[in-house]
């Protein structure tokens, strides 16, 4: 289960950023706080290989984990723009 909002504010903001761009969140168990997945599921998308990602409850470095989540989302948005 996602335990309500993520305890870390940077990760909370990164998850909000993903959700705002259409990503969806589902519960996870154990060390996973939740699973984010990209809505596009476009097989042509370079990131389509790994379009489902696990957000940790207690990552080793929360600010880096938040940054990696943002980069994943921004890379997809960026690639989307590049296709236009």
């Amino acid at each position, binding site marked *: 289960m996602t335990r309500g909002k993520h305890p870390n504010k940077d990760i909370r903001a990164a998850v909000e950023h993903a959700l705002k761009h259409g990503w969806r969140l589902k519960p*996870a*168990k*154990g*060390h*996973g706080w939740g*699973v984010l997945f990209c809505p596009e599921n476009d097989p042509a998308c370079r990131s*389509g*290989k*790994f*379009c*489902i*990602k*696990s957000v*940790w409850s*207690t*990552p*080793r*470095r929360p600010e*880096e*984990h938040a*940054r*990696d*989540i943002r*980069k*994943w989302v921004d*890379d997809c948005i*960026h*690639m989307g723009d*590049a296709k236009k």
Partner: protein
Amino acid sequence: MSDRTFRFDLAFALADPSQDVEELLDPLFEAGCDDALIGWNGKGSLGATFSREADCAATAIRTGIRDVQTGAPGAALYLVDPDLVSASDIAFMVECSRQNVRKHLEKNAPDMPSPAHLGNPALWHLAEIGPWLIANTPLRIPRETLEVAREAMRINLDLTRQRLESLPPLPEQEESWETPRTAHG
């Protein structure tokens, strides 16, 4: 020497393509992947984006591979990134426009490293084009990124050689029925 942060992506093929990756998440975390963003596609591929502190890129990447393979036994590494990059990838990395990067690359200076792949888009080894961009343009790439790019190029080269050496022999060419020749044959 103090530790620095190295960012890199690892791609693995799972031993069992139908494996439910969510069952691997706890073993991966406990094996040390708590500094990685683990991703999957439900079709047998597993990705790990690491932001790992280490004294050098080689150590960061080597231990990252080890930790994933400890949490997901039998996972076969097939790619380390960043290695091959397009102008768009470089633009994203240096936070400027793709047009700006292409302007520099399309000058085709004689000492510019050759692409590793000609196509649309063309691809360069970041380990080669990165230092050239730093020396010849205002674009800036962090040293840690270049260290990762060099190590990624080395590992990908080893992986490619293993794949080449594992190729089965080409099948014997079958005798084919000749099509009837036309008048000019």
